[in-house]
């Protein structure tokens, strides 16, 4: 099912929560709404589900306007952060619920519940009560419950946030596998950018009720539309520069063509040059890029990586994440670092 929103707006008691959101979610996509808490992503999801009415704007399912339709008429089951399994019903009855509401014949119900539970590897637990299951198992049942009705679209509201870190990674793989076998349309809300990067077909990054950028995970990460998006996807170092006549970005530390240059930047414009702390390399200068003479300000050893705060003689501070660190680095130690041109982005200052 193709889901479209047009200029949706919503405020609660004078506070604007959604300030004009227009999106297109294509059939079969795993579409992510990503943003910090309070950005309006959950409200947007609840408007699509029919739990919250928008103040203005429209929502279409396959071209049909659904504004005003109650949740039960929209056929968009949701997987909740709290699982929301009904404690008075067995696992089987939880999954069968939507089918019973549709008054399906008992044999059909058995078959489809069985299939839906198999899809999440919960087939052996049909007779259990929800409170006899672990968090991960409960969320699997909740996903089965949504899948059983064979919905045109599924909604996920931070489904993995209540699970511990290790289980979260497992469930991520499993969700990807379920979606690969059965490519349903899904809208998935999360504040975890790693979850979005690994699962999403496309991501909409939201901030304060607006969509800042829509794109594939790679686009969002390597070609961020603005500073907010770049920083939300992970730590960034920023240095000031100017766009030169031939399109390079010139800084006191060198001049090169960045991997991505924001389309609005013209020669002579001031620009912000950004790069990830992990993109810095020791003894670079192999190709085009920017080079820094720095001293270690502080170091934090973390196993596979080492985080360092670095400072140039004229006071510029940048972060460096050294991977596979072989030696400890003491404050004051001099290091020469370089970032390759293709690893940097230039945004309007």
């Amino acid at each position, binding site marked *: 099912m193709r889901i479209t929103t047009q200029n949706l707006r919503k405020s609660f008691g004078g506070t604007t929560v959604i300030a004009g959101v227009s999106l297109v979610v294509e059939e079969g996509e795993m579409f992510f709404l990503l943003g910090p808490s309070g950005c309006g992503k959950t409200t947007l999801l609840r408007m699509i589900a*029919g739990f919250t009415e928008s103040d203005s704007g429209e929502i279409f399912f396959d071209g049909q306007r659904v504004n005003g339709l109650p949740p039960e008429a929209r056929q968009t089951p949701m997987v909740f952060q709290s699982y929301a399994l009904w*404690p008075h019903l067995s696992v089987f009855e939880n999954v069968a619920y939507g089918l019973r*509401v549709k008054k399906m014949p008992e044999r059909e119900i058995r078959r489809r519940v069985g299939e839906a539970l198999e899809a999440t590897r919960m087939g052996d637990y049909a007779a259990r009560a929800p409170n006899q299951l672990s968090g991960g198992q409960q969320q699997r049942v909740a996903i089965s*419950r949504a899948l059983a009705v064979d919905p045109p679209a599924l909604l996920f509201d931070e489904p993995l946030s209540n699970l511990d870190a290790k289980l979260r990674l497992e469930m991520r793989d499993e969700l990807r596998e379920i979606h690969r076998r059965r490519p349903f349309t899904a809208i998935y809300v999360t504040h975890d950018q790693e979850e979005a990067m690994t699962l999403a077909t496309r991501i909409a990054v939201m901030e304060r009720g607006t969509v800042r950028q829509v794109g594939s995970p790679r686009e969002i990460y390597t070609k961020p539309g603005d500073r907010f998006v770049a920083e939300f996807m992970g730590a960034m170092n920023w240095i000031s520069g100017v766009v030169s006549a031939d399109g390079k970005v010139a800084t006191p530390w060198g001049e090169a063509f960045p991997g991505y240059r924001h389309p609005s930047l013209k020669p002579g414009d001031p620009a912000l040059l950004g790069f990830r702390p992990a993109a810095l390399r020791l003894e670079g200068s192999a190709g085009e890029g920017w080079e820094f003479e720095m001293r270690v300000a502080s170091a934090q050893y973390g196993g596979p990586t080492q985080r360092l705060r670095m400072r140039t003689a004229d006071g510029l501070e940048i972060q460096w994440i050294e991977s596979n660190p072989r030696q400890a680095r003491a404050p004051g130690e001099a290091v020469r670092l370089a970032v390759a041109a293709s690893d940097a982005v230039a945004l309007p200052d």
Partner: protein
Amino acid sequence: MKNRWKFRTALALVFAFLALFLVWPMVYVVRESVWIEQEGRMRFTLVFFRLFAQSPFMWACLLNSLALAACSTAVCTAISLPLAQLFARRDFPGKTFWQALLMGPLILPPFVGAIGVQQIFARFGALNHWLGLVGPGVADPHPVDWLGAGGFAGIVAMQSLHLFPILFLNLTAAMANINPAAREAARGLGAGPWRVFRTVTLPLLAPGFFAGAILVFVWAFTDLGTPLIFGYSNVVAVQIFDKVTEAGFNPFGYALVIVVLATTTVLFLASRRLLARQDYVTQGKASARDDLEPLRGRGLAAATAGLALISFLALLPHASVLLQSLSDRWFMSALPERWTLEPYREVFTLPQTVSGLRNSLFYSSLSALVDVGLGVTIAWWLARKEFAGKALLDALTVLPLALPGIVLAFGYVMAFDVPASWRGFDLSGLRAVVNPRENPMLLLVVSYSVRRLPFLVRSVHAGLRQMSVSLEEASRNLGAGPAATVRRIVLPLVRGNVIAGAALTFAFAFLEVSDSLILAMKEEFYPVTKTIWALMGRIEPGAGAVASALGVLGMLLLFAAFFLANHVLGRRMGNLFG
């Protein structure tokens, strides 16, 4: 859109019910107290209140009632606070047994207990006869009057013994809600146990304490049954009762009711303000359960002795009523002289007692049913919906807690005194159904329902609050409409709260004294409490024993109801009285 109209119609009906049976009687009483015919014209006047203020007798009644309430509240506090501390913090053998025993007083209306207690403590009662076995006792020319001058002490004792469980439940619930970390943090910063109690526990306990204490105070302030039995008539409740039963018009009735209503309203508003200022609910409930420290050795012995004493005192009225119901003759002696089951046979054969039992079962079940319907609906609206008038509905469903039965009953008698005809219209049909002087059935059931509605709303509301909204949302977006969702998901999940609330409503309706005494004017409509009261007024020998037997049957029934409620609600029962 269709759903919206259905909702609006239902909301209008609920508001109409509350307006007619809760607001209108009060408005009527207020109007009648100041809007009086003088020199052939209706005019506003405060003459009743001036008369009231000028009457030393009325002042004495008011002060007596306030003094009774203050003493009973103080005694209740003195009993409940250590008990709550003990139950919330310590583990000891027989804990559940003692807890059940301590709930015992709730199943006996104190005025019935008073009948038995008088038998024991009167000047020529059982106690002085027992004492006679070891000392002067009744042989003394002036035996000790244990009930004190005019019965004041006796009333305080009966009320306190009946009401302390309410405060105990409140305080235990409040203590259980205090996060142990709040106390541990204070201990960690160097405060000793007493300092922690004073600076952390007590302030956090205050909201729970006030919520319970106000109920106890208002209950004692407006108690009708106990002073009646002790013949202590200089209290406002008895005066109001007399004014209703007196033939003809008496201006003091209205003024008295207004004074009582004003007092309770002020008290409730004051406690709400106090609570609003000290609302700690947002600070989160106890996440970690207290590790209860077991009680051993001397501490255990002291606690057990204390519990035994309190339980003995609290259950003495029950025991004495039971004894009296089994006695053939119990007069001027330590124990009944002859034992018999005759009173129980009479309870089931005398037309008066049979109809009393039947009436009470009927009224109480019906009022419980009305409350289930109203309570579930209102609780769900309050928990899940936003609508105009929500705050008003919330306030109206709390209001009955502040409304003494005697005030509501007085209002009903006055406001629903429908004449046989009005401006040529024949109203006799309406009069036959509504006017309590003709047929009190409707108003009795409604008054029981209205007064206990807060229990059901709270009970169900609490259940809904603990139930995540997403459980309902998950059902909605799997295709179930609102009605199907309530039926298949909500009701099964709050079933326990509904049953508990209904059991309590039933039990309290069965126990109700003031509504019953005032509204049931014809014998054929008497409920159990009024039947007991009527039997006590008889001089024929054995009437007291039959009344006691009826009381014992009531106790058994209520015990079952409370057992059920406690079983389904568990330790959360205390929340209902807050």
